[in-house]
């Protein structure tokens, strides 16, 4: 047999083909269990589960980002880029406080500003100094305003006690910061006056209240001393004695 003849015979073997049915059946079998390719319609529909998945993920990521951001902003100082975020959380804190709690919240914030001023002084971040002082003064002004609105007779004495303790702490902190900075960081005259008025009103109210009670001899003596202090204008000292009597 000639080579050309053999090659021709070989080429005739190209007629050997599988049946069309088998070809299409096998193709289907290969892809069985695989997801169908997306047409326009199915593609659009299948977008929704993905969309839902992303929707579910988005709030989780947002919350995590917010928590991270919140944690980070707590370390910022007045004058820093993200301090406004920190201030926003503080404003929300004040907004959600009751009117009776607002002065104490403001005083706590003023104390926070004093702590920040300490950090600024320690790290010599001169750029943050002026904004921090302004923030402190703003908190003090707001605290003074809120204190003036307090009605001592309808307030909880314990809240008043906490308020005065916060004021005392703030005054001490302010003196410490001023000594470090070598400068006065704000006039607290109005705040002192407001506190003095509260001390006076609270002492007067509680003395009247205690006078209505039956007291032991020693307590009666302490009440008399408190009254003397009150009459002498030493309202804070008077209140210290009144707190002792009130706790009995």
């Amino acid at each position, binding site marked *: 047999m000639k080579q050309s003849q*053999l090659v021709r015979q*070989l080429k005739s073997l190209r007629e050997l083909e*599988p049946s069309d049915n088998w070809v299409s059946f*096998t193709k289907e079998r290969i892809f069985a269990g695989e997801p169908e390719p997306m047409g326009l319609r199915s593609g659009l529909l299948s977008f929704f589960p993905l969309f839902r998945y992303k929707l579910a993920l988005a709030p989780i990521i947002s919350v995590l980002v917010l928590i991270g951001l919140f944690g980070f902003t707590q370390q910022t100082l007045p004058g820093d880029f993200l301090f406004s975020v920190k201030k926003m959380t503080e404003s929300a804190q004040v907004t959600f406080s009751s009117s009776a709690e607002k002065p104490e919240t403001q005083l706590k914030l003023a104390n926070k500003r004093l702590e920040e001023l300490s950090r600024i002084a320690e790290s010599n971040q001169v750029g943050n100094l002026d904004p921090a002082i302004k923030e402190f003064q703003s908190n003090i002004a707001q605290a003074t305003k809120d204190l003036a609105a307090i009605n001592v007779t309808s307030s909880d004495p314990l809240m008043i006690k906490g308020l005065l303790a916060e004021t005392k702490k703030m005054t001490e902190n302010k003196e410490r910061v001023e000594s470090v900075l070598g400068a006065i960081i704000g006039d607290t005259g109005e705040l002192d006056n407001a506190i003095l008025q509260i001390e006076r009103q609270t002492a007067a109210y509680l003395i009247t209240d205690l006078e209505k009670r039956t007291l032991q001899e020693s307590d009666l003596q302490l009440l008399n001393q408190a009254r003397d202090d009150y009459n002498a204008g030493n309202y804070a000292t008077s209140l210290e004695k009144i707190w002792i009597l009130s706790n009995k």
Partner: protein
Amino acid sequence: MANIRKEFTKVYDKYVKKIYRFVLLKVNSAEIAEDLTSEVFMRGWQSFKGQGPDKIDNLQAFLYQIARNLLADHYRQETKAQLVSVEYAPLLPDARQDLEEMSFIQSDMERVKAALVNINDDYREVIVWYYLDELKVPEIAKILDKSEPTVRVLIHRALHALKEELK
């Protein structure tokens, strides 16, 4: 996933007949050829899907390689089965006997087909690739991982062996 599936569908449509023929000319049974060809594409699809189409250098060579491996496995298993059940096994049809029977039919195609089954695997493979599938020598060299001159020599010897088988 949809794009990969679409791509593999194209691959399937392009090569299924060639692979089927390649397998059939070895096993000489349409049923076995269908089973093995479908297995070639099953494995091909798994690799295609797993590795990605970009990782497979030459799809044609890749599919032929799977087919060769499957054929080797098939004959290994068949040999084992014969060893185990030789006493009870029915007499296996002898390809040479088939060739003699087919000579009565005088069909050129059947004669060549039967002769191809009987020659050396390497010879049959290069004949199928070169004369039936019209693969170029470099393509065959790539599938066999041999040099082009070696493949040319192999084709020449394969044709000679086929001629001898047909005598």
